[in-house]
């Protein structure tokens, strides 16, 4: 563990921001104020942050339908994100994308993606670009256990090995692909093993342990930056909510989430570790909590008050030139 105190506070702030962003969305969505489909990242925060803490604005990521955490970890503006999810004119994507299509190119965030397995081929292209640029930049491709079964992902991993691309394929196994268990749908029950089969280094970590994710991701990114080709990181984790908000989650035992909230909470693990080690104090962490809660309150209040897009916007942005 090589993190300085300011970096530890940043990691905690990012994870806490993701958590409270999602917990607040869970409440607001239930009021009917937010249109469409939303997939919450609560519980998986250590993965997005542990990976993205290694990346600069000109490194790239591609994300998933469950992408809010990746966006926040990569530096997207939280208020702009909330406005986008509310479908507002000054949302990050002008209200045209919504929860599943948030992108911020100034932050190297090439887009959440509502197609499971849609992102990894795009990640290979971004990696081709940085490899040609010769600037040592890397691309992280986030996906879930479900995406690990898609042919597009196999194609992307093979291409990345063939072309020795600086791409990290991150697999967040949260136990379910939509409403079906990983243990059923991932035939080999070993995502990293599959990745290794493509000829890349593949590692497994506890996704609820920020430090495990951070350290291993750092090691793998070092390999990418040395030009040694792609790698994969499988993270075991859970999600604290359903596939989408409103999902009755009949596929989960009644006490499953409550148990995981006790045993697999990355924020709780982080707080315990840093206070046990004497790296941070509870008071310092509590101060971050207060800041984050104020930010989320502000984001929601601003989003509720923000104007919707003008209907003329339905016809713009299809092409650069018509």
């Amino acid at each position: 563990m090589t993190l300085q105190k300011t970096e530890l506070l940043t990691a905690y702030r990012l994870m806490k921001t993701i958590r409270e962003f999602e917990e607040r969305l869970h409440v607001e969505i239930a009021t009917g104020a937010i249109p469409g489909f939303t997939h919450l990242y609560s519980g998986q925060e250590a993965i997005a942050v542990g990976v993205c803490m290694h990346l600069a604005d000109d490194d790239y990521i591609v994300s998933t339908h469950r992408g809010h955490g990746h966006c926040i970890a990569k530096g997207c503006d939280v208020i702009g994100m909330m406005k986008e999810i509310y479908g507002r004119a000054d949302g990050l994507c002008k209200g045209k994308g919504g929860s599943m299509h948030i992108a911020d190119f100034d932050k190297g965030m090439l887009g959440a993606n509502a197609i499971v397995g849609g992102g990894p081929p795009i990640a290979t292209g971004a990696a081709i670009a940085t490899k040609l640029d010769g600037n040592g930049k890397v691309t992280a491709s986030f996906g879930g256990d479900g995406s690990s079964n898609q042919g597009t992902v196999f194609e992307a991993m093979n291409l990345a090995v063939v072309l020795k691309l600086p791409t990290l394929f991150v697999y967040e196994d949260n136990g379910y692909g939509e409403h079906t268990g990983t243990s059923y749908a991932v035939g080999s029950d070993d995502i990293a093993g599959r990745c290794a089969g493509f000829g890349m280094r593949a590692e497994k970590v506890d996704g609820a342990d920020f430090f495990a994710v951070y350290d291993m991701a750092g090691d793998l990114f070092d390999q990418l930056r040395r030009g040694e080709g792609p790698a994969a990181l499988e993270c075991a984790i859970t999600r604290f909510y359903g596939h989408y908000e409103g999902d009755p989650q009949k596929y989960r035992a009644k006490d499953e989430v409550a148990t995981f909230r006790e045993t697999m909470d990355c924020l709780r693990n982080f707080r315990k570790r840093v206070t046990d080690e004497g790296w941070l104090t509870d008071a310092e962490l509590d101060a971050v909590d207060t800041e984050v809660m104020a930010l989320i309150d502000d984001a929601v209040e601003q989003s509720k008050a923000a104007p919707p897009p003008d209907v003329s916007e339905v016809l713009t942005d299809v092409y650069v030139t018509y």
Partner: protein
Amino acid sequence: MTVKTFREALNETLHAEMARDSKIIVLGEDVAGGAGGTGVEEAAGGIFGVSSGLFKAFGAERVIDTPISESAIVGAAAGAALAGYRPVAELMFADFIGVSMDQLYNQIAKFRYMFGGKTQCPAIIRMPTGAGMNMGAQHSQTIYPIVTSVPGLKVAIPSNAADAKGLLTTALRGDDPVVFFEHKALYPRKCDVPDGDYLVPFGEAALVREGEHATVVALARMVNFAEKALDALAADGITADLIDPRTTSPLDLDTILESLEATGRLIIVDESNPRCSVASDIAGLVASEGFDLLKAPVQLVTAPHTPVPFARELERAYVPSPDDIAAAVRKVVAY
């Protein structure tokens, strides 16, 4: 002007544009060929030779042989375009678009819109298309109606070497994604091609031939077939405007309507299947925007609603012929 084949025009355009713009890269199956083999490097230069010599000129970094992985090819083009490059991806045959469809219509086509206009995706997806070489049902289709229907994609379908150069140059210098169809039977066909910089704007039809009695709209190889038909009809004193839209997205409907103001009779020739096709689309647009101009029912000369057959006799019957076109013209003129 220099006489060149369709294939030469495309190949020389790629050479010239890659020399002009270091952000242009080419990727696809066998665009160089020979990687990992026991023979020579650049063993193919593309299945029809369109990327010939690019590997030698620009190297393996910019001319990228890929595995047979159409989703990865088109997806890599998508990602490279988002990251500032101008990828030209080749699908070996247009029929293989199915494997890559998500990357094309859910990703490339939609980035700019769903991300609120904050990005652009200047990826060009080239693909040989069309019947006439007995390649069977999965190597012979003209599937441009499928992509023409997708907002966010532009679709170019040149019918001659000059337009091939002009449209590809425009595509490479534009900022939007373009699906670029190259009819296989056109590759060896020659015509005068303007030297130097030559751009054909998208959404501007070519009036290939002027006439009096009817308006014939045709695409790709069918332009040539329509010319043969009109040559035959001239003996009977029948002449027609022949319009090649050149791009189906955007579509130049105005030129068609202007022609119909004079002729009132419309024949649309398309090698695609008839349902939900470019032909039916143009017929529908004319019906809604130019109904008063029509003096006769619109005639559609298309392939039948079947897959492309293999045997020479069957494929010949499948592809619209100059005789079919001539018969349709006679029918509307006599109406």
